[in-house]
């Protein structure tokens, strides 16, 4: 079984992706080449942007089963509408009208159970794609990409994980921002979570929300501080008071932000930064 490390943050823009990509490279260099990066931020997947020499190994659409109502068989009894907790079924008996709103459907299957007249059939809807990229040196990156307008990010994240290709010792999950269902889905099977934060009031507030979440789901975690020096010391006081491991920190640098903007954070890691990532790798080795 692969050792799974999820990278999350609460607040967006703290540097999750930068961290995930660099940790991935550092594990590849300092631990094992059998590591895969999995971009679970399916709304806005960005990891690939940092690997310009990629090629697509395989891509597949993610389809989910949705119901289709056969109005010739439908008696408009409305039992399916009643069973649907997501308001995805619209039925107007007087007009003999029955339809399914595919963007509201969660594919739970309740309507199929509800229908006693064999009027509901399975069809499929594409909610996004899962792509396996070769990003050079036999390294692999997998990414989920949500169809724009689809609200089913959680389902796509689950499908992404179910469709991972290849056997790897280590998986790195790059999570979306926030603390709600897509983040829970991302971290659900992780063995360890690294929270990336920045030492600002916004960063600390959102970090605390995420810590609450991780304690509630009982996941071990540590914190990495990005953009250190830009803000105040509140985050360090919080970590100390709560007895949370500080895994490392990277100082804020406008030049590095410039490198990031060009997508060049992997090739141009300053030596002192590389050392910090290596220390995180050593920390993870002890957990595994």
């Amino acid at each position: 079984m692969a050792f799974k490390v999820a990278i999350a943050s609460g607040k967006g823009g703290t540097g999750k992706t930068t961290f995930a990509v660099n940790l991935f490279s550092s594990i590849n260099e300092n631990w094992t080449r059998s590591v895969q990066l999995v971009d679970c931020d399916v709304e806005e997947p960005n990891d690939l942007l940092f690997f310009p020499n990629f090629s697509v190994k395989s891509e597949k659409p993610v389809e989910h089963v949705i119901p289709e109502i056969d109005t010739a068989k439908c008696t408009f009894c409305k039992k399916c509408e009643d069973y649907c907790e997501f308001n995805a079924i619209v039925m107007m008996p007087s007009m003999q009208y029955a339809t399914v709103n595919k963007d509201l459907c969660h594919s739970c299957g309740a309507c199929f159970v509800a229908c006693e007249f064999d009027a509901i059939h399975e069809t499929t809807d594409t909610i996004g794609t899962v792509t396996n990229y070769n990003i050079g040196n036999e390294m692999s990156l997998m990414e989920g990409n949500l169809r724009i307008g689809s609200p089913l990010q959680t389902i796509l994240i689950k499908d992404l994980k179910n469709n991972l290709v290849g056997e790897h010792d280590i998986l790195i999950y790059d999570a979306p921002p926030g603390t709600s269902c897509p983040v829970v889905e991302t971290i659900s099977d992780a063995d360890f979570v690294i929270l990336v934060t920045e030492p600002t009031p916004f960063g600390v507030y959102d970090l605390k929300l995420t810590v609450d979440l991780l304690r509630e789901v009982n996941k071990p975690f540590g914190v990495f501080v990005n953009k250190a020096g830009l803000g105040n010391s509140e985050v360090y006081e919080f970590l100390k008071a709560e007895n949370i491991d500080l895994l490392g920190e990277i100082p804020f640098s406008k030049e590095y932000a410039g490198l990031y903007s060009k997508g060049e954070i992997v090739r141009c890691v300053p030596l002192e930064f590389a050392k910090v990532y290596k220390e995180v790798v050593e920390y993870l080795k002890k957990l595994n």
Partner: protein
Amino acid sequence: MKDITILSGKGGTGKTSITAALASVIENTVFVDADVDAADLHIIFQPKNKETHVFEGAWVASIDTDLCTNCGLCQQHCKFEAIHFKSDGGLQIDPFACEGCRLCERVCPTQAISSMRSINNHWYVSDTRFGPLVHAKMGPGEENSGKLVTQIRKSAKDIALEIKADFILNDGPPGIGCAAIASITGADAVILVTEPSKSGFHDIVRLIELVQSFNIPMYALINKFDINLDITKQMESFFAREGIQLMGKLPFSEEMVYSMVEKKTMVEYNKDSEIVNTLSELWKKIASSELKMEH
């Protein structure tokens, strides 16, 4: 009254700091923190709470083990793999995996399963030094952030009508998922805040495609434009091609961070800065009828 939403696709582009700075410039406005997942606007607004409401979230099922016969029918029907046999044999539901479809409850032959709506989410109406603020706090790992956004925007609209406000300003969530969709629906205009990085560009393109599907006018603002002048230039021509008016460019500024540390808006921190000037000009354009916002 105009209902305006600030969005970015990518997180960390400065939506909240910019909303806060604008709050110091504009008048007669109701504010909404529509990033219910990681709401931060209150850190600067320091709201005085007036009303607290419970937002009923999704259904979550649980099994009464006294009534359960361990037949496993619920587990067979659950599409979300939320129901498992425990090591000692009994069935249990993982509340974080449960999507609240209630199918298990309906198929259970012994009525051993019941569902409760989560009451971990709250939303608030508050007074602030800038005007009313409607904001929320979600419980950890909750679903339905889109519905919560819809709820607080509705409340803001009621307040805006009551006090005859000129604007509603929504500080939106990152991403393009359900919360972002809920914060666009019914808005009169979207202000896109972006930063000149490959990821900022990638994310704003996806967001623009989403907003276009709603047929709502949008205006762009490039934050930290001097971090990468090449990408800033590419963004400028992209916006021009897409017919999106660029309302301004803000330089990278550590002051923006230090104003946040002091829990002040940029205007309160340094009203003579270039950022404040640019944002004041931007708001003048938005407030005047120069911009087309027919709905």
